[in-house]
């Protein structure tokens, strides 16, 4: 029920409207309770939890290796980012060093995922605001990324390809040719999206000056990723706290100062170009042969060959897959730059083969907090633009 007030023009009453959880532009199952004065949003209260599956609790009853498959299901548009962050956290807990070849392959694949995630964002954001064709184009290119992921890992989406200590399996010999073909194709395709949107007057009207969030508010609210960078703060975990050899790669962290939906659009498009640049460097760096897993008996599964021929390796293999391994007691916090912002994994061990606590610092969860600040005082049509622009994935918000 809304509230009423007696004004000079008579009695006015606000109306309460439920947006979601089945509304298509809430990108999943987000419910926003809107209090409206005509078409103006007076108050917005996000209501989450419709997708809560207790992933953090489930992790506590799995071994460290088994929990990887659960991380895929958090941010299902960038599963490899979650795999990477979780593996880095457990590797930090164990004090494991990953071979350079595996690190570069990880970088390449996570950047591919970033492009894929930004493509889904661009396509759905555009279709929310009425531009149908961009959506179809974006999904066409995303399909190419998924094909590469399938070729490498055997899975299109829930790859679980990164494992503790390295990678699940050796990529097929000619996989880099496919990546090369994609990298050659993509710049022209990005230009195609820009041709459709960047100078489009309807697009301008729907995004320029909409959803402005200042840098101070972003930092106070903990908002990271493209939303923070669109307010002029060049905070990118890949640069500030490098991981997985990112310090060896040359790329820019694009920033804007307008801090509106349009700025975030330009920013994410530029980020796709920067990711292509990182992928090209990674292709140069990846050695044609070499270990993809670190040599850590009892923690990292032995090579198939060894397992079939050496007694020791067979015992380790058996132990890893039956009882797991026990890291020393302690706690670590590892962050990476996911497509949505700072993704963090807090992993605490009590010395048993199952994690005592796994906490996911989901960027979508934190960024969604700022939604009322974006939409209050604006028109109801802008709510759709604002939900789109912060790029949430409800799997990660609700966990």
């Amino acid at each position, binding site marked *: 029920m809304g509230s009423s007030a007696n004004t000079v023009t008579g009695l006015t009453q606000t109306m309460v409207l439920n947006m979601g959880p089945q509304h298509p532009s809430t990108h999943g199952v987000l419910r926003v309770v809107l209090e409206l004065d005509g078409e103006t949003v007076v108050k917005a209260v996000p209501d989450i939890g419709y997708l809560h599956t207790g992933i953090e609790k489930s992790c506590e009853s799995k071994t460290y290796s088994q929990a990887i498959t659960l991380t895929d299901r958090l941010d299902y548009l960038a599963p490899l980012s979650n795999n990477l962050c979780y593996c880095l956290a457990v590797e930090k807990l164990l004090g494991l060093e990953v071979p350079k070849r595996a690190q570069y392959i990880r970088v390449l694949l996570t950047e591919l995922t970033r492009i894929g995630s930004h493509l889904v964002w661009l396509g759905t954001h555009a279709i929310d605001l009425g531009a149908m064709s961009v959506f179809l184009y974006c999904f066409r290119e995303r399909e190419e990324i998924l094909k590469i992921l399938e070729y490498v890992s055997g899975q299109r989406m829930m790859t679980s390809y990164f494992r503790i200590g390295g990678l699940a399996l050796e990529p097929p010999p000619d996989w880099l040719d496919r990546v090369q073909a994609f990298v050659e194709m993509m710049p022209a395709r990005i230009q195609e999206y820009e041709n459709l949107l960047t100078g489009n007057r309807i697009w301008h009207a729907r995004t320029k000056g909409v959803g402005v969030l200042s840098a101070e508010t972003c930092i106070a609210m903990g908002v990271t990723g493209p939303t923070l960078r669109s307010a002029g703060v060049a905070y990118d975990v890949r640069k500030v706290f490098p991981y997985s050899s990112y310090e060896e790669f040359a790329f820019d962290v694009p920033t804007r100062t307008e801090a509106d939906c349009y700025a975030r659009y330009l920013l994410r498009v530029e980020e796709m170009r920067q990711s292509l640049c990182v992928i090209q460097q990674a292709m140069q760096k990846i050695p044609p042969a070499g270990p993809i897993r670190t040599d850590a008996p009892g923690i990292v599964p032995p090579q198939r060959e060894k397992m079939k021929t050496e007694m020791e390796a067979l015992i380790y293999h058996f132990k890893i897959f039956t009882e797991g391994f026990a890291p020393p007691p302690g706690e670590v*916090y590892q962050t990476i730059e996911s497509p949505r912002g700072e993704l963090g994994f807090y992993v605490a061990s009590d010395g048993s083969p199952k994690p005592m606590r796994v906490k996911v610092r989901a960027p979508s969860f934190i960024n969604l907090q700022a939604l009322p600040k974006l939409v209050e005082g604006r028109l109801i049509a802008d709510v759709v633009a604002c939900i789109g622009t912060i790029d949430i994935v409800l799997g990660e918000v609700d966990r």
Partner: protein
Amino acid sequence: MAASNHIEQHNVVRQLRAWDPKAIEEVREFRGGVTVVVPRALLRRTAEFLCGEPQLAFTLLSDLSSTDRFPVEPRFEVNYHLVSMSRRERLRLKVRLSGSDPVVETVTPVWPGANWPEREVFDLFGIRFEGHPDLRRIVLPADWEGHPLRKDYPVEGPR
């Protein structure tokens, strides 16, 4: 002993000690991450100091989470993962809470972004944050019984 001397030389630890010697209950370093355990009564003031002091500038609260060490007492730990964006440094602030009185002061006036994370900890662990503007359950329904991330809550659920 050498290790503990080394951690005493840490910039943040020295500044905290100089500010208020009682603010540090314990300091630990593990895999390059520094943890400062603060007494519950001083948490809010320490948070204000760490955020507001220009030499430290831990302006970004990256994460706020809790751990249950049941049956050990004090069983709960609340972890605050702080980032100083200007100095490129991270710090973990920790406060220990007993199972009989799981209450701690809110840090929302220091970092407004702590609002949802504190609600989440309240929802899943039953830790109350004194002075929180809107302490309701966030991911579970309002009529849910129990706090699922507590160690004495079965994985299969209570029923």
